[in-house]
């Protein structure tokens, strides 16, 4: 069966390889920005690219449980890495916004408070902090069942991230709506009546 082959293959891939692979686009995009490869306005391009990769990682993270439950593909050993990578990209995205884009401290705070799409994005970042801090074996043991409860914050983070993208776009644009639709679909799969439908 295909899933078995994937599972065998996945067991052979070391987690550090996932880290390396997933961080490569950040390094590459930054390099492009330095060397004129991101066009006339590299700051926004870099900021946007990092944000989109973060959203893609959110989606990847949300796929892991349904993949196992419905298709029997087990990628659970990469889930922590995917979560922490998502947080890393969100941090980089935020850092580019703070240091390269806005730069002005007073305006940063004004944007967070007054601009709804920034407020939403920043809230998602804040919600991720406890998740990142507890993404280790010690916290997992100490928190016990509460760990699972806490990490359901991921669902909120995912929706906020997509809303952030939709809200900052001008006019009626398809791409951000697709992100939200995919995230909502992945969350729907966790809804009890749907979650019971398992693969044969």
């Amino acid at each position, binding site marked *: 069966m295909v899933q078995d082959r994937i599972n065998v293959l996945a067991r052979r891939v070391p987690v550090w390889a996932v880290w390396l692979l997933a961080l490569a686009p950040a390094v590459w995009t930054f390099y492009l*920005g*330095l060397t*004129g490869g991101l*066009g*006339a*306005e*590299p*700051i*926004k391009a*870099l900021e946007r690219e990092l944000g989109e990769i973060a959203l893609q990682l959110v989606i990847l993270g949300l796929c892991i449980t349904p993949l196992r439950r419905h298709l029997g593909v087990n990628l659970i050993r990469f889930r922590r890495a995917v979560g922490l990578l998502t947080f890393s990209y969100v941090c980089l995205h935020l850092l580019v916004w703070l240091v*390269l*884009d*806005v*730069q*002005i401290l007073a*305006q940063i705070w*004004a*944007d967070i408070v*007054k*601009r*709804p*799409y920034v407020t939403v994005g920043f809230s998602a970042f804040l919600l991720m902090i406890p998740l990142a801090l507890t993404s280790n074996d010690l916290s997992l043991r100490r928190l016990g069942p509460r760990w699972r409860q806490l990490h359901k914050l991921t669902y909120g983070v995912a929706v906020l991230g997509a809303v952030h993208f939709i*809200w*900052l*776009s*001008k*006019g*009626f*644009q*398809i791409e951000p709506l697709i992100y939200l639709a995919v995230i909502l679909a992945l969350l729907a799969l966790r809804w009890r009546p749907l979650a019971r439908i398992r693969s044969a």
Partner: protein
Amino acid sequence: MAHRWINTLSDTDVTPEVAFLNRRQMIAGAAAGVGLSLMAQRARAETLEPNNWDDITTYNNYYEFGTDKGDPARNARTLTTKPWSVTIDGLVDRPGDYAFDEIMAKMTIEERLYRFRCVEAWSMVVPWNGFELADLLELAGVQSGAKYVAFETVLRPDEMPGVRYPVLDWPYVEGLRLDEALHPLTIMATGIYGRDIPNQNGAPLRLVVPWKYGFKSIKSVVRITLTDKEPPTSWNKANAGEYGFYSNVNPEVSHPRWSQATERQIGGGLFSSRVPTLMFNGYGNEVAGLYAGMDLKKNF
């Protein structure tokens, strides 16, 4: 009458204060109805450094060709711009289709180095070539009842991949008050750096209103209608709370989703800083009088 407003190119850095002074002197002359000879006493050269050709022609908002800044440069080559004509109708003495070549034969092409400020808080400096809109309107003869000018962009689904999506209500439309349209700063641009204007920048002719946010400067114009009512405008129809009819550059009135107090000058690379945005994009001395007594927070 062409050449009512003059600037010269210079490679020195942007120093808005100096630019202010020059224009104040120039417009003072114009306002007093004094001839060009007197205005020729420019104190110092305009000190704006134009963006390079690549920046100007690869970083564009022209949603008919896609919403990514690079989409227009990638997709707009399919736009047929020859032959081209502009329908001028409504409250004019001589309505009809004006062929582009016929217009060009009658207009005086000037170079205008203008700041260009996008509503998204980035800016460029563009060396346009074009003619004053007032001269084109004079061809058609504006009737006394006219108060506004409506503009329309060409709509060709076969040549414009972006119009498959309802990003905006196509065709793109814009409008100006008649006095704004007749202002000597308002031009129809037909070139950049002395070359024909590229499709992605609005070939073969587009409006340029340098004291307003870029989206007012409608591209690839096929219709100009003189009316007595404020015409609908695309972004206002899409979101009236965010985009007003006037849309004058104003650092004190925020876009609901972002500040307009500062702007990023395109071309500065990864480590450039934002600079303060100027009222009326730095053209206050020329155009502030158009809005005397108006609440610009209400009429944003």
